[in-house]
């Protein structure tokens, strides 16, 4: 159940269904369960925020959806088709589910424009001119005009994140997987990033699977919060964020925002304390 409004502007693709997924690691013979019978249903176009303490296994879940490793048991479906399951434990990474990484994975040796054009260039279906024209247009739309020929190492981290998101969007993915992308940014830049992300979302409705440990970020952006327990991770509580979209920063001080914060905070703190006491190293 979600507060996503079912209207014509919502996409019909990009629904993820995680069914009873278990992931067990086996480094040096000591079996470590990272994900414990996790089941989540994400409708198409939803911004689903995965909140939990560091090291609990949320990134592992994301990696399984993305196809970077396989699962031990369970199924994951994308729009009804199976992504991975018994017999095919590892999905193939692909441009229908693109990841935006924690430390950013823009190629430092390519300019911003070349980075953005990367996906379609690899695919080879359009001509180079067509691709670059589209890339330039998307950069203008995202407010990145003027930085086309700069290298990622020359611009601010905030800008780099935006370029990375645009790079992902060039491929018209069904799902965007965010792995704590704003963790390393200061909170001022973060709030700008949040609004920028929502703007981008309103123009390109994709499903967003967003991992974070920042509760404020989660409530501001998401339709729904799924609060995970400490390792091994399992959904502990689901919080609906029924604040209507489109949102802007004034939302942050609204009474409803506070109520939701209160609802969520208790649970999050409890899990964080458990992780802290267990001395878990961050994933």
């Amino acid at each position, binding site marked *: 159940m979600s507060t996503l409004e079912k209207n014509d502007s919502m996409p019909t693709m990009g629904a993820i269904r995680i069914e009873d997924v278990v992931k067990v690691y086996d480094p040096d013979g000591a079996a470590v369960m990272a994900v414990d019978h996790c089941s989540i249903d994400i409708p198409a176009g939803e911004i689903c925020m995965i909140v939990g303490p560091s090291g609990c296994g949320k990134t592992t879940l994301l990696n399984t959806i993305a196809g970077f490793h396989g699962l031990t048991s369970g199924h994951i479906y994308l729009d009804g088709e199976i992504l991975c399951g018994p017999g095919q434990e590892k999905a193939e990474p692909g441009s229908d589910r693109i990841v935006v990484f924690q430390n950013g*994975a823009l*190629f430092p040796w390519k300019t911003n424009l070349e980075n953005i054009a990367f996906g379609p260039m690899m695919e080879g279906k359009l001509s180079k001119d067509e691709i670059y024209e589209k890339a330039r247009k998307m950069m203008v739309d995202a407010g990145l005009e003027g930085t086309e020929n700069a290298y990622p190492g020359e611009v601010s981290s905030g800008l780099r994140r935006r370029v990375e998101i645009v790079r992902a969007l060039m491929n018209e993915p069904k799902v965007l997987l965010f792995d704590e992308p704003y963790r390393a940014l200061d909170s001022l830049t973060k709030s700008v990033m949040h609004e920028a992300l929502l703007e981008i979302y309103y123009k390109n409705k994709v499903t967003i699977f967003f991992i974070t440990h920042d509760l404020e970020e989660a409530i501001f952006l998401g339709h729904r919060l799924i609060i995970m327990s400490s390792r091994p991770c399992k959904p502990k509580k689901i919080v609906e964020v029924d604040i209507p979209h489109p949102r802007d920063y004034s939302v942050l001080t609204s009474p409803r925002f506070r109520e939701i914060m209160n609802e969520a905070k208790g649970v999050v703190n409890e899990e964080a304390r458990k992780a802290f006491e267990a001395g878990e190293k961050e994933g």
Partner: protein
Amino acid sequence: MSQSNATMNLTMYRISSWLKSPKPYLMFIGFGFVLSFWYFSVEVWKLPRFQDMPALTEVIEEWFSKDPYYGLSIYTPEYYKHIGISLRRIAYAFFLATALGVPLGLFLGWSQKLREYIFPLFELLRPIPVLAWVPLAIIMFSGSETPVIFLTFLASFFATTLNTMLGVESIDEEYSRAAYCLGASRWQTFVHVVVPGAMPFIFTGLQISIGVAWFSLVAGEMVSGQYGLGYIINTAYIMVQYSQIIIGMITLGLFGYITSALVRVAGDYMMQWRVRELALGGD
């Protein structure tokens, strides 16, 4: 255009701030100390051990005289002939080693399978000191040039391959993951991520490689060559022309440094993105 401008500005800035610091003065004081120690110990105090050593004044006289006593100074064509021959040998060996070593290193780093096959063999051959190959090289290759070049090549080759391989292994996994997400095939990822990503490491390796090349070249020339700087040093010793030894050594040091700097500059040129990134303090 603006690329070389950036490098120029950076270089000018570096030079001017260097001049303003105490560094150049300390440097010259340091040189002065070493040189005066040499001068005093041999010519003035005539310390026991140092008596037979060639004197600083003698060496300088010889090196810069129009009609040198022993035959080699900056005015004699022979001097340049020997330099040229050593440089030529280095060039052949180094470029061959790079042309073979870089691709091999790249593939070894990239393909687990290939590495499992080839790396043990590689590691078995590598510890054998290059000089130990001298007799074998003389037996296998006819002529006097080829063995020397072979030895130099061998040393360079091992260093380059190893460093390139390590370079590939040091690339952050997230870059290749990002590429896969964006729809790149394995080969495309190799070309667009692995090769550029390994470049900084490759160039560090190449600087090591050229140092090693000089090392082996000198050894080879001393043992079995005719002409070349190593040959000069050895002959000068046999013919008791000690000042020539020093001239040979200094020339070696000079050209060793120049060639290494050339490699570094070539690297900077090919990796503009890195130069710019480092100039802005990295991130």
